[in-house]
C-alpha cells in the first residue's frame, strides 16, 4: 500500500473573474517510510496539496488517499494518523511551550510522557524555555516546537509545509538532520521547500511549478537525466562576464550560480576553444571554464523552459 496517493487532483480558486488553477491534474504516490519532497517556488500549489491531503480542503476533481483512507470519506481516520506542520506558525502564541505541547497531546488522547522518546531530541533544546510563551520564541525555536506538537501523538505520516522557509542555513541543516532521524524511526514524511539545495536530502522529489509537476524521481536520477553539457565559468568581473556569455552566439542559457555562471550551449559539439578565444577578446583573460555536474536547481530551470 502506498502511504499517500494522489490521482488527477485538481483545485481551482476564483476571486471575481479570475480563476487560478492551484493544483492542475496532479498524480503521484509516496511509499511507506519514504522522505518525499515537493520542490517548487511560491504559487506552485504545494500548500493546497498539503491541505487536501490533511482533509482541510476539498479538491475540485480527482481523489487522494492517505494510508489507504480516502481524504473525503475517511477524514476522521486520517486526522488521527497524521501530523501536520503548516507553513505559517499556527500554535497558540499566548500559551507557553509546555502548554502548547500538552494541549496537542491531550487532543489526541495521549500524554507528553507516553511519546516523549519520539520528540526528546528536539524538545530537549526547548525545555529550558518551557515556561516561555510561544509568541516570544525565536524563529528556530518556534519551528522546533511546531515539529514537537506535530509529532506528539506518534503519527504515521508527517506533513511539513515549508518548514525551513526564512530559516537561516545553520537551522535548516539541523532541521534536516532531525528529519533523517524521524525517517529512521519509520515515519513517512512529505515535506515541501522552495530551497532547491534541500532536494538532495530527500529519497524522491517532485519538482513542481504553477500547479503542475515537472518531474518526479530520485534526486540522482533527475540530475543524471540532464541531457546537456553544463559548464561553470568564472572571471574577475562576473557582471560583465554574464552579459558577455549571453551575447556569445552558441549560448543557449547562462545564469549566475554563486561564484560561477552556469552555461549551456545550443550545440554541445562545438569547440570549447571558440569560447575561450571569445572570452579573451572580451577582456576576460583569466576566465576559467569547467565542465560540471548539474545541481537540482539547474534541472529545475531547464524543465521550466
Amino acid at each position, binding site marked *: 500500500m502506498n502511504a499517500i496517493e494522489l490521482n488527477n487532483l485538481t483545485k481551482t480558486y476564483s476571486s471575481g473573474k*479570475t480563476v487560478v488553477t492551484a493544483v492542475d491534474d496532479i498524480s503521484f504516490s509516496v511509499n511507506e517510510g519514504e522522505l518525499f519532497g515537493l520542490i*517548487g*517556488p*511560491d*504559487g506552485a500549489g504545494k500548500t493546497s496539496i498539503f491541505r487536501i491531503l490533511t482533509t482541510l480542503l476539498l479538491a475540485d476533481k480527482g481523489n487522494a488517499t492517505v494510508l489507504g483512507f480516502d481524504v473525503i470519506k475517511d477524514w476522521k481516520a486520517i486526522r488521527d494518523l497524521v501530523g501536520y506542520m503548516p507553513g505559517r506558525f499556527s500554535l497558540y502564541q499566548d500559551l507557553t511551550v509546555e502548554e502548547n505541547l500538552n494541549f496537542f497531546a491531550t487532543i489526541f488522547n495521549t500524554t507528553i510522557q507516553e511519546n516523549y522518546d519520539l520528540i526528546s531530541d528536539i524538545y530537549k533544546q526547548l525545555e529550558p524555555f518551557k515556561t516561555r510563551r510561544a509568541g516570544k520564541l*525565536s*524563529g*528556530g*525555536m518556534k519551528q522546533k516546537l511546531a515539529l514537537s506538537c506535530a509529532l506528539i501523538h506518534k503519527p504515521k505520516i508527517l506533513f511539513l509545509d515549508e518548514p525551513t*522557509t*526564512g*530559516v*537561516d*542555513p*545553520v*537551522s*535548516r*541543516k*539541523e532541521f534536516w538532520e532531525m528529519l533523517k532521524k524521524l525517517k529512521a524511526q519509520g515515519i513517512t514524511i512529505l515535506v515541501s521547500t*522552495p*530551497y*532547491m539545495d534541500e532536494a538532495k536530502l530527500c529519497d524522491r522529489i517532485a519538482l513542481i*511549478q504553477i500547479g503542475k509537476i515537472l518531474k518526479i524521481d530520485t534526486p540522482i536520477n533527475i540530475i543524471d537525466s540532464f541531457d546537456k553539457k553544463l559548464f561553470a565559468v568564472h572571471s574577475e*568581473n*562576473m*557582471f560583465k562576464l*554574464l552579459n558577455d556569455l549571453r551575447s556569445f552566439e552558441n549560448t543557449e542559457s547562462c*545564469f*549566475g*550560480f*554563486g*561564484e560561477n555562471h552556469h552555461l549551456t550551449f545550443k550545440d554541445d559539439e562545438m569547440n570549447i576553444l571558440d569560447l575561450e578565444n571569445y572570452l579573451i577578446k572580451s577582456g576576460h583573460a583569466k576566465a576559467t571554464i569547467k565542465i560540471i555536474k548539474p545541481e537540482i*536547481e539547474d534541472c*529545475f*530551470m531547464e524543465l*521550466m523552459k
Partner: protein
Amino acid sequence: MLLEKEIVIKTDKLTKRFGDFTAVSEISFEVYKGEIFGFLGANGAGKTTAMKMLIGISIPTSGNATIAGFDIYIQTEQIKKSIGYMSQKFSLYEDLTIKENIQLFGGIYGLSDKEIKSKSEELINKLGLNNEADKLVASLPLGWKQKLAFSIAIFHQPKIVFLDEPTGGVDPITRRQFWDMIYEAAHNGITVFVTTHYMDEAEYCDRVSIMVDGVIQALDSPANLKSKYNAESMDEVFLMLARGAKRGE
C-alpha cells in the same frame, strides 16, 4: 572596480539594547557607493534591528552612523528621502494597480507629476508590463511583484537601496533575473544593502558581513572569506561562523 571609494554608509560602534538584552553590539563598518553589500547572519543575530537603525526608524542606544552623509539620530527624515527599501513581507499595495503603485510611491518620494508620468511609462515598458499596467498588483505572480517592488524602491534614484530577503520563495529563474536588476542598479551607482538566506546569493555581493549574536564576526569579499576560512563555498563559511551562535536558536 570602483574608481573612488565614496562612503555612503558608515557606522561606528553602533549599539541597540532592549532592557538588558544587547541586540546589536558595537558594530562598525563602511559601505561604498555602487557596492553590493550582503548583510548576513543567523535568525536572531540582530540583522533586522541593525537595519531598522540604518533606515532611520529606530534610534540607537549608543554609537554613531551616517547614511548618505546624514546622521541617524537627528537627520532621519533626510535619510528616508535618500534611500529605497523593499522587503519580502511588504512591498506594494495589492489593491492598487501597477500604475497606481508607481504614482503613489513616486509621490511619496517627492517626484513631480511630470517626472512620475514619464518615468512610469519608461519603467512599465522596461519591465514589459504594458498589458498589465492597469491591473491590480494582487493579480501579478510573486516573481513579477518582487521585480516591480524593486523597481519602485529605486524609482526616485536613491543613494542606497535596502533589500530585506527580497528573493524568498521566488522561482530560480526569476531569482536570477532579480539579481540581474540588482547588478544593473549597482552599476548605475546605487548602493545595494541586501539580506538573504540563499548562500549562492552571498557570492554575488562585492562584500558580505556575517553577524553572530549581535556582533559582526566577519566582513570581506566572498573570495577573501573563503580563503581565510579555507572553505569551498560561502555556505561553509556561514556554517563555520554561525554554528558558534549562542542565542536565537
